[in-house]
């Protein structure tokens, strides 16, 4: 989607973009380059020196089955949370788009989760899912020990994923609804004239048309599953039990900041960064090149 760019000026664009570039360089690229350097050295925790280590830090994490466990867990987390959230949001948006009476009320409530801070939701869901408190924990009165995120890693992970998916509903819903409402009415009418039932029309006509939005959301959701998960995990499980809710970002934080292994954490950051940049790049090409509609 190339714009026939209209202004030519040697200085002005730099003045406009300069402040942001400067901030990005100072607060992003400078620290990142430092982390990059650490990834190839053994950095002393208190500063004061480091030794060149070549690819050792990378070989070390690639040999570590716990690291691969974290990678798989992150992938599962990203897919499960994203899938769950987008599915719920899309379903709600499709029905809200029918604009029946009273829909506005539903519409406004569906956006609410967007406003909630991940740690705040984490605290709330921790109470909801707490095995000793009276909500989900009440099942333990009927079948003792059936629900225990404090010791069971699967339970803990499920709890975090559900919370994450819930948080994403608002954002996904807004975008899906926006996309659905942008579909020209005539398409729907033509479909109706051809005798397609409402449900068929949803599946065959509307869904393909909102594909670009779906892809955009996929990127945003996956990114958020890497970033927002921090506040959630930190307030809900702190990575436990036995590290079974540690996803890549949280492990980087734990290994680097808590475990004082700056070099190992830096190597992990590089892997994560490459992974996400690669993913995004593919998605970007897809959204901007392949899927056109109007």
């Amino acid at each position, binding site marked *: 989607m190339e714009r026939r760019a209209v202004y030519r000026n040697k200085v002005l664009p730099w003045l406009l973009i300069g402040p942001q570039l400067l901030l990005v360089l100072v607060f992003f690229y400078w620290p990142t380059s*430092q982390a990059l350097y650490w990834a190839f050295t053994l950095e002393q925790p208190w500063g004061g020196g480091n030794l060149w280590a070549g690819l050792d830090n990378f070989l070390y994490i690639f040999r570590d089955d716990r690291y691969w466990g974290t990678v798989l867990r992150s992938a599962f987390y990203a897919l499960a949370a994203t899938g769950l959230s987008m599915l719920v949001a899309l379903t709600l948006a499709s029905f809200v788009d029918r604009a029946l009476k009273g829909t506005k009320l*539903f519409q406004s409530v569906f956006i609410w989760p967007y406003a909630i801070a991940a740690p705040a939701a984490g605290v709330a869901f921790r109470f909801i899912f707490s095995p000793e408190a009276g909500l989900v924990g009440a099942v333990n009165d009927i079948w003792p020990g059936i629900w225990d995120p404090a010791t069971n890693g699967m339970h803990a992970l499920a709890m975090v994923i559900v919370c994450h998916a819930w948080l994403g509903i608002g954002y996904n819903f807004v975008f899906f609804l926006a996309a659905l*409402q*942008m579909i020209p009415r005539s398409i729907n009418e033509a479909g109706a004239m051809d005798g397609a039932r409402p449900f068929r029309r949803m599946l065959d006509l509307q869904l393909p048309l909102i594909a670009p939005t779906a892809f955009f959301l996929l990127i945003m959701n996956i990114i958020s599953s890497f970033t927002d998960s921090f506040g959630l995990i930190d307030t809900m499980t702190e990575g436990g039990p036995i590290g079974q809710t540690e996803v890549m970002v949280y492990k980087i934080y734990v290994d680097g900041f808590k475990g004082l292994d700056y070099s190992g954490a830096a190597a992990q950051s590089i892997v994560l960064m490459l992974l996400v940049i690669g993913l995004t790049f593919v998605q970007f090409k897809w959204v901007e090149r392949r899927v056109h509609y109007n």
Partner: protein
Amino acid sequence: MIERSPFFDALTYAVMIIGLILVVIPFWVVIVAASQSLQEVSRVPISLLPSDQLWANLSEAWARADLGPKMLNSFIVAIGVTIGKITLAAMSAFAIVFFNFKARMICFWLIFITLMLPLEVRIVPTYAIAANALLPFQVILDTFGISWLVQAVSGIQVSLNWNLLNSYTGLILPLVATATGTFLYRQFFMTIPDELAEASKMDGASAMEFFRDVLIPLSRTNMLALATIMFVGSWNQYLWPLLITTDRANFGTVVMQLKALIPAQNGTPDWNVTMAGALIIMLPPLLVVAFMQRWFVRGLISRDK
């Protein structure tokens, strides 16, 4: 809708109501728990009806987590970030979309990639930067021998130092540096037809006049949407403020206080106070989203039917 189908309408309502329950349950639980006494909240199973202790719990949470000054800090940071980001993002997106200069795509990617690497993973070096935001320039000066030169000529030792720890600037600037705003503005500017700019050019308007008189007014709804996103995003920041404010009493924000409110940090499992605190903390961004909703949604839709 085009035609009525009673069965499908019923299904629509059913799905929407289920969705409503899904979305509202956590809020409801927070409110209910926040209104109960310690005995009530500890009951298994818990009653899902509100009780009468809301005010007591709210004030207890307010006092325990020292939310008054923290609230003010959160507002200062959120508003600072919102204003800063809207301004910077509009400017840089304008440059990227409407100017033809060589480094345009590089600049876009330079900015865009910052979305990819969350703060959490580069926390230690970023902290060092916050302690002295001018460090990169110092290093540049040192590497090229400029500082040596200055010292030799004037006898002044160049040491650039700008500490951002425990300051509003430190809480705000790094958050302004991220790319979400630029990205959203770019998406919007891309939808502006070229003809509009061409026409403005024909009228003899300069680039900045086009920016001021055409683009800014056109993007008003987007700006409101962006403002909402930025406000919510910065209010909800967690790790960054946690890290750079060692002086929590004066520069702490409310979201940082959440962990201090979790039971088992303080003895009794008083989830009612925890939930009351969570309620206070989640309210401002929730109100912003609720009030801005119309513009928020429309700003993201960006085109009318």
